[in-house]
């Protein structure tokens, strides 16, 4: 057995980190109920485990999703993760072949060159020399990119990178030191014993020409070991916790874990899986319009992780979900944000006693039409819907024609779940009493809560789905109006509910639809989302103008959307004074009503 005291910092660090993270993971997993824990066992003994392994390999090591976002950024991340993995793997095999033992001390592969000066005499010895140096070079190239990234973010397709905490800076410094120190230590050794490959050998020779290598070799190995040890000890407290945690996240997610209404152990796994890579920063429209940054997922998750209440910019978020779409780790930020809003705001209840006295007039009908509060401010939409119902000869009841109770989602998105439930109860009573089999709404905000929280026994459709069906079944026969249009996906309808194809199919029958830079999953938010509380008129206008500029780039005849709030917002923005041109804004229902006239 080879031993030298310099391996101690590394060894102690490694033992500490393993104990710490395992303790954390067990605590988190065991905070879940037994039934849920069983899901993990079930997953491990099923074929699904192969897909878990594949995903871990693809995401944790290769960083496939980051590659998709930006190849250079992907290369940088994978060089660290995959490179380091290969270095450990290669080192282990090499050291085992060299020692002819299946078991050796865990630090031996790490400090192999120090202990083994003569590394010939086993199969592929020279190949290994070459390979190990190549891997080291691979990592070092990534390191150079990481350093450049701190200076030139744009090269990586990023406008901003995340700011670092002190622990992160320490961890980052030690991480950045590890591989250059390894290069230095191995080169200094190779300079004396010629046991290095193309990189360390040549670099060693250069060093030998100018430095007293025999005196520097030993301190260099100490420094390498200390850098590793420091990094390991810092890891559980720094953003690098994401390295092991992402694997746990993939396993739990595949087992069916999800953050829903409570902040669970799984939520903690999600939160700690955030590497603060910063990809979400550029996706955030609040940030790009206002330069406020507290609500950015990277910082929000950080403040959740370290339990900093009130510092999270909790309400300053549109919950549009764009950040979730780009997150390479797939963290469900919106759900975590909602849970956190609940924790802070849910108890301060509202007073809806008056709803008990309000009359609950219900009309028997086949289809209920719920326009939604906002639709009353865009009467063209509701008039078009009424026209289309009549054209298609539908027996419908306009539920909120005169007075209405809010659907509850505006309260729910602010974390006032209990209040929202009172409103939902009232509406549910009205809906159930009508005997209808279908509920159609014009508002994606209402649509989402009807679908997800109301537990209704009847079918729920947004008017885009419903009208598309009416056209497909021949009940409505539109003519093609042949105008050029762009379609804006409302957040709660698109990303929020996955309704992408129906409006596009419907629109394709009456217009020529232009392609957009950001659409479907990456569609921009209009900026007026009710989930954001502090964004005032100016902030919203800024966001609307930025979005409108992008949407109207192709100079379409119409900007079509499917949400009264988006429509109202864009009507204000799509004019000469704001975006330099006038583009008409209409809801898809209005357009269809014109097409079936």
């Amino acid at each position, binding site marked *: 057995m080879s031993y030298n005291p310099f391996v101690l910092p590394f060894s102690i660090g490694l033992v500490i980190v393993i104990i710490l993270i395992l303790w954390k993971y067990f605590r988190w997993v065991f905070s879940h109920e037994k039934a849920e824990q069983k899901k993990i066992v079930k997953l491990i003994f099923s074929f699904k485990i192969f897909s878990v392994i594949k995903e871990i390999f693809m995401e944790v090591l290769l960083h496939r999703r980051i590659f998709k976002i930006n190849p250079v950024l992907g290369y940088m991340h994978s060089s660290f993760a995959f490179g380091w993995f290969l270095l450990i793997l290669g080192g282990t095999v090499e050291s085992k072949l060299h020692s002819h033992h299946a078991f050796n001390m865990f630090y031996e592969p790490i400090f192999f060159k120090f202990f083994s000066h003569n590394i010939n005499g086993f199969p592929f010895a020279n190949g290994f020399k070459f390979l190990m140096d190549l891997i080291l070079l691979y990592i070092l190239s990534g390191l150079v990119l990481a350093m450049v990234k701190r200076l030139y973010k744009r090269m990586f397709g990023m406008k901003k990178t995340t700011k670092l905490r002190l622990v992160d800076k320490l961890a980052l410094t030690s991480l950045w030191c590890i591989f250059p120190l390894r290069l230095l230590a191995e080169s200094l050794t190779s300079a004396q014993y010629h046991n290095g490959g193309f990189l360390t050998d040549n670099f060693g020779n250069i060093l030998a020409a100018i430095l007293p290598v025999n005196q520097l070799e030993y301190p260099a190995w100490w420094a390498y070991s200390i850098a590793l040890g420091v990094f390991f000890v810092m890891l559980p407290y720094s953003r690098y916790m994401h390295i092991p945690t992402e694997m746990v996240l993939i396993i739990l997610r595949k087992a069916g874990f999800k953050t829903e209404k409570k902040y669970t152990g799984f939520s903690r796994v999600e939160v700690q899986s955030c590497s603060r890579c910063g990809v979400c920063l550029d996706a955030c429209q609040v940030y790009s319009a206002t330069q406020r940054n507290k609500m950015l997922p990277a910082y929000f998750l950080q403040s959740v992780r370290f339990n900093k209440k009130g510092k999270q910019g909790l*309400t300053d978020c549109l919950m549009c979900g764009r950040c979730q779409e780009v997150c390479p780790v797939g963290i469900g930020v919106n759900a975590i944000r909602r849970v956190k809003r609940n924790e802070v705001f849910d108890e*301060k*209840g*509202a*007073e*809806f006693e*008056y*709803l008990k*006295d*309000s009359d609950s007039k219900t009309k028997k009908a086949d289809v209920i039409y719920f326009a939604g*509060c*906002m639709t*009353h*401010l865009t009467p063209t939409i509701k008039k078009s819907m009424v026209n289309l119902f009549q054209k298609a000869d539908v027996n419908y009841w306009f539920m909120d024609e005169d*007075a*209405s*109770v*809010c659907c*509850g989602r*505006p*309260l729910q998105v*602010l974390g*006032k779940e209990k*209040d929202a439930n009172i*409103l939902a109860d009232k509406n549910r009573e009205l809906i159930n009493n009508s005997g209808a089999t279908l509920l159609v709404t014009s508002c994606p905000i209402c649509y989402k809560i009807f679908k997800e929280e109301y537990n209704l026994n009847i079918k729920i459709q947004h008017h885009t789905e419903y009208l598309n069906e009416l056209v497909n079944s021949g009940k409505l026969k539109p003519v093609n109006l042949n105008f050029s249009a762009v379609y804006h996906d409302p957040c709660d309808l698109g990303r929020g509910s996955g309704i992408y194809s129906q409006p596009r199919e419907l629109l394709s029958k009456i217009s020529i639809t232009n392609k957009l830079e950001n659409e479907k999953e990456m569609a921009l938010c209009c900026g007026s989302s*009710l989930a954001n*509380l*502090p*964004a*005032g*008129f*100016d902030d919203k206008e800024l966001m609307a103008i930025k979005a409108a500029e992008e949407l109207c780039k192709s100079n379409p005849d119409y900007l079509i959307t499917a949400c009264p*709030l988006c429509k*109202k917002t864009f009507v204000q923005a799509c004019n000469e004074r704001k975006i330099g041109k006038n583009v008409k804004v209409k809801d898809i229902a209005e357009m269809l009503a014109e097409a079936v006239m």
Partner: protein
Amino acid sequence: MADFGYKIQEDRQINYDSNDRTLFYFLKRVEPSISLCIGCGTCSATCTVGQFTQFDLHKIMLYVRRGEKVHIANEIKKCMLCGKCSLVCPKGINTRNIIFQTRKFLHSNK
């Protein structure tokens, strides 16, 4: 004591010398747009809750300004936060945040 039929009457006046306007100053800090209100009443006219109760946002905002907190503590709870008022406000006041922050303030300063 003999009852002469007299009672101490509550002061009907808005007493600007003694009223506590901390809520208004708080709101001015967290949501400065409250200062823009001209009391046109559009918010109250469109209000979803106004159909069921006497909840009246423009009046609440006036009371807040005048330091008449008593009148609003119960009223402010009736809002459904649907946001119609902020859509129609001609001054672009962030009414929803005003209501939210008022509730927060009254809750923590009970």
